[in-house]
């Protein structure tokens, strides 16, 4: 039964020279898995989590194509395939874009990965067990118009994809990261995005893993002066879907828009964490999280906006709206502010509730059936999230949401 430890140890033996991996593993062994008594993990169903069930992927499984991958690929300029954390296809050459794998041990934050993630058990596992770092570099000044699609497939066991995206000064790109597969698996992505001065990245993390999967992801954007990161996070799959999306606004005028969209069914848990760290003047962060939970699914949104002294005229907003589609579903919303500068604009708003009964009645009084009225209202709820996505992707996600909704029972409170 010692599957995980045995396979992790054999993986580390193959990478015997890499000290950081071994240190990360030791740090993990020392700290162990988080406990639900730890505030940031209190919503995770860790009681059902048995790490030893998973075997660490030692080599990539086979590549298969799903209809969603085909649909996404059709609108993309380059398709990069990662299977079980291993790069298997870098896609066709694209002007201004370089895709490679590196045995990187440093964080784009500066310093070693270990230093940066020392208190995060799952991130430590990634530091120890990621096959390598997928590096996507967009050359300074390059304007890459067609989206770059990165498909992360999980075929079995535990996989630890690690990705660094680096946009040079003034570069512009759209990257769609799509996660699928992962039946009875554990998928722990660790990603960093570095945006140099005036770079602009539109990024989507679209998680569509199997309903049995555990997904524990962490992404961090590092934004230099005038850089702009527009990130959309869509969580539809997984049994436990945890997504921590941070941004450090390091240069003046940097801006981060983050939209997280999720739909929970069955006994799914969607656990979203954000941390926007404003370090420079006139930086902007706009967070909008909108999700619906059906059946006995749960969601939590915990967002921290932190504004350092000197980050004058920062504008930071977080909004979180949750739709409860059944009396057994539950949503928590925990916005936090930590402000050490006076000259700032800061706002947060949140709501948790069922579909609006009077809006539904209004539609019904026109002759719309209850089921259609509910479908229209839920689609309407998600509409602003979808329109923020690149248009080809928006259609795919909309169809996906609609399809998921068609299998979900809406139960009035």
């Amino acid at each position: 039964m010692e599957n995980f430890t045995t396979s992790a140890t054999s993986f580390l033996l193959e990478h015997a020279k890499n000290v950081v991996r071994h240190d990360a593993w030791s740090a993990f062994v020392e700290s162990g898995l988080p406990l639900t008594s730890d505030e940031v993990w209190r919503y995770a169903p860790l009681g059902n989590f048995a790490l030893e069930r998973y075997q660490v992927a030692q080599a990539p499984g086979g590549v298969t194509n799903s209809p969603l991958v085909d649909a996404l690929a059709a609108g993309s300029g380059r398709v990069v395939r990662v299977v079980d954390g291993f790069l298997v296809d870098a896609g066709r050459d694209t002007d201004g874009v370089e895709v490679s794998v590196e045995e990187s041990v440093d964080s784009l934050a500066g310093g070693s990965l270990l230093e940066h993630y020392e208190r995060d058990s799952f991130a430590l596992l990634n530091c120890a067990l990621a096959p390598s770092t997928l590096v996507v570099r967009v050359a300074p000044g390059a304007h890459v118009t067609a989206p770059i699609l990165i498909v992360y497939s999980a075929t079995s066991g535990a996989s630890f994809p690690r990705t660094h995206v680096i946009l040079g000064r003034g570069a512009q790109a759209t990257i769609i990261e799509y996660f699928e597969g992962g039946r009875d698996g554990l998928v722990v992505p660790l990603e960093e995005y570095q945006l140099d001065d005036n770079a602009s990245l539109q990024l989507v993390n679209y998680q569509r893993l199997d309903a049995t999967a555990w997904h524990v992801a962490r992404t961090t954007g590092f934004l230099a002066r005038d850089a702009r990161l527009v990130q959309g996070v869509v969580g539809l799959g997984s049994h436990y879907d945890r997504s921590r999306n941070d941004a450090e606004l390091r240069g003046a005028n940097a801006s981060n828009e983050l939209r997280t969209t999720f739909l929970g069914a069955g006994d799914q848990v969607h656990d979203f964490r954000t941390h926007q760290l404003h370090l420079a003047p006139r930086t902007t962060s706009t967070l909008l999280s909108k999700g619906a939970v059906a059946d006995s699914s749960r969601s939590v949104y915990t967002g921290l906006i932190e504004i350092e002294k000197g980050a004058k005229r920062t504008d930071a907003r977080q909004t979180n709206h949750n739709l409860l589609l059944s009396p057994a579903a539950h949503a928590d919303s925990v916005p936090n502010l930590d402000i050490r500068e006076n000259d700032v604009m800061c706002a947060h708003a949140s709501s948790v509730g069922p579909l609006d009964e009077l809006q539904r009645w209004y539609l019904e009084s026109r002759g719309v059936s209850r089921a259609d009225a509910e479908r229209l209202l839920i689609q309407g709820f998600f509409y602003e999230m979808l329109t923020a996505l690149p248009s080809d992707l928006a259609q795919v996600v909309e169809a996906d949401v609609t399809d998921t909704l068609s299998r979900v029972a809406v139960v009035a409170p």
Partner: protein
Amino acid sequence: MSELVIENLHVSVGDKEVLRGFNLAMRGGEVHAIMGPNGSGKSTLAHALSAHPGYRVTEGSVRLDGEELLTLSATERARRGLLLALQQPFEIPGVRPVDLLIAAGADRDEVATRMNEEADRVGLSAKVLERFVNVDLSGGERKRAEMVQLGVLRPKFAVLDEIDSGLDVDALGAVARRLSAATSEWNCGVLAITHFRRLLVELAADVIHVVSEGRVVATGGPELAEELERSGYEPFRVAH
């Protein structure tokens, strides 16, 4: 000819009984007006007819062509041919009017053309109908948009809940002309709840009902509206 018959309707809002034995009968193609002071139960009638969840029918009957409506859902009532146009129609963010109308049973292939025709008839820019249902629309635009729904869905009976309030003269004229045309185009019966005689003049109401304390206290021809204009509701209050 269609027929709408309301008999001995009692409706409560919370613990308060607002309609107390309301009676009214009308046929397709007719225009009936309901007038009465604030709090007399006019809006309650409109909402109860459309199964608004905040209004509880405790007694009575509402039949459309002989079929009891009170046991039916809001959806079924609308599908049988009863449509309510609201004073303050709800905003539905993220939902386009065309999708609402298709879900309400409008013909998918013709709905866009029909919406444009109807918008044109009430002087509503077709662009307004590309926005989400009632979102960022002015009061006048909302009521014209309700008329577009009515024109596309062609109900047997239209119940208008103070749709004239807050409308300027041009909008009022446009709405009234559309409704008058509906009475001859498909014999639509119009039940207009209003404070103002102006709409009734534009609509050429056939029958006026004065409501007080939750029931009809007087019924007459257009001359009744003129009388109300002169004397106010007070004599009718005493009369019952």
